[in-house]
């Protein structure tokens, strides 16, 4: 089922001295529930503009964004309901949680604001959310963010995003600030949640390797334009557009590196 639809979206910024800059140029894609789209491209390619339009921090210059076939409401109760449907997971788990508040507070707040469960069930729901992101509720519920590791914090941020029972998750570089041994855990969690809950996930990253493994489909953005799209393996393993090839050639690839060093036998791991 199509949840989200970008329909020929263009965003132009007027910059003093530099004239007009097309941050997005006729971008169209659809996101189905339970599927993950990887959005890759270098800095300035327009990835974040898409996230900003989705969160209604920016409005498109032309074109339309539709949720369940309806345009995104601009204000009022409609906008609130929309924001309940779409949640963000940010890059920096050290900055996205409030240092003064307990984990319980972080998760209770969206539950209260969106009246997800009756008051009496708040505690149970918070514990259920922590379970879902594979944190032990008793170990973390009364702690503050600084007492948790980066990976634990990012799990709390994901639990918070899930609290309002959204249907879409926008994850903007959700693991790039985490230690490498924690990254796969968090990405696997996102993949599981996407599948189990039928969430549509937009995974924004410049890491081609994780994009390949965690996305069903990949969109390659360059200077505001989608230059290539296709299934994850097609785009990464058999890139067609020169820009995608360039991105791939620039990404570290030990397999290929050692294979080229040792001729025929290397890289077979």
């Amino acid at each position: 089922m199509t949840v989200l639809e970008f329909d020929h979206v263009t965003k132009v910024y007027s910059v003093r001295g530099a004239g007009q800059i097309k941050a997005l140029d006729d971008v169209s894609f659809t996101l189905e529930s339970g599927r993950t789209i990887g959005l890759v491209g270098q800095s300035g390619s327009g990835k974040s503009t898409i996230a900003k339009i989705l969160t209604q921090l920016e409005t498109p210059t032309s074109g339309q964004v539709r949720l369940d076939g309806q345009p995104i409401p601009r204000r009022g109760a409609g906008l609130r309901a929309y924001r309940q449907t779409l949640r963000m997971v940010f890059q920096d788990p050290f900055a996205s949680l409030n240092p003064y508040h307990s984990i319980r507070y972080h998760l209770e707040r969206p539950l209260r604001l969106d009246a997800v469960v009756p008051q009496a069930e708040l505690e149970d729901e918070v514990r259920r959310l922590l379970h879902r992101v594979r944190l032990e509720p008793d170990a973390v519920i009364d702690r503050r963010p600084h007492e948790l590791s980066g990976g634990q914090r990012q799990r709390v941020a994901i639990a918070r995003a899930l609290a309002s029972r959204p249907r879409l998750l926008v994850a903007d570089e959700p693991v790039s600030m985490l230690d490498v041994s924690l990254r796969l855990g968090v990405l696997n969690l996102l993949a599981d949640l996407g599948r189990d809950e039928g969430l549509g996930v937009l995974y924004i990253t410049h890491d081609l390797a994780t994009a390949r493994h965690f996305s069903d489909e990949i969109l390659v953005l360059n200077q505001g334009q989608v230059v290539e799209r296709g299934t994850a393996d097609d785009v990464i393993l058999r890139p067609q557009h020169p820009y995608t090839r360039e991105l791939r050639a620039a990404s570290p690839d030990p397999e290929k590196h050692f294979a080229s060093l040792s001729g025929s036998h290397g890289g077979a791991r």
Partner: protein
Amino acid sequence: MRDALLSVHDFSVTYDVDPPVEAVKHVTLELRRGEILGLAGESGCGKTTLAYGVQRLLKAPAVITSGSVVFHDASGEDVEVDRLDAEQMRRFRWDKVSMVFQGAMNALNPVAPIGAQLEDVFVVHRPQMSRAERREAVAELLEIVKVGRQRARSFPHELSGGMRQRVMIAMALALRPQLMVMDEPTTALDVLVQREILRQISQLRHEFGFTVVFITHDLPLLLEISDRIAIMREGEIVELDTAERIWTNPQDDYTKTLLSSFPRLTGERGVVVR
């Protein structure tokens, strides 16, 4: 076998807080002249503390509790870094060993033109140089790192992230050091800019022949650029071997864990259950 440039023996650093943290534990390491040594590990493993420690750049509460560091100068003289007095240390730093700092993109002074900041290196370390000579040296450095001499009057905010990183490399290169320590020099850059900077580092190394210690948590990157890789965990080097052997035949369990933490760009899928 290439000769040694730096010998670190039984080196330990403790952060004297309550309770004390042993950040680096009895590290012994020999750096060979001309190699790129990758230092990999996760946050808190002690890799930056080790790199700072061997140059005695640490401040209290960090305490070097044991060990010696000997720098084998190209002149044939052995410098015992831990025995230098303050003035000798000042001369030693940047002249023999320079550093590209973590977050280098923000390490430049925002209110001074980059040319003036580069000139400072010569003012302090080469006081005999005339102003015109300094200017020329700065212009030459900016040419070498392909920022261009005409940018000497630019302020840091007028340059892109990649260009600022090049300025930092120019600064580290200024006195033609024998060792350059690079602490996460490309972490904040996107892949295309990162690749350009790496290419440039490797080219400069060919030209000027310095040795590199490259610190990062990005193991796939290290596997491509390093001659040897040291894997650090909880203050200890758990494994040190050539990049190829780390890749094909890792011995330590932690090395194996790190290797398996990175999804392969082109290899088999299956790291992830999907």
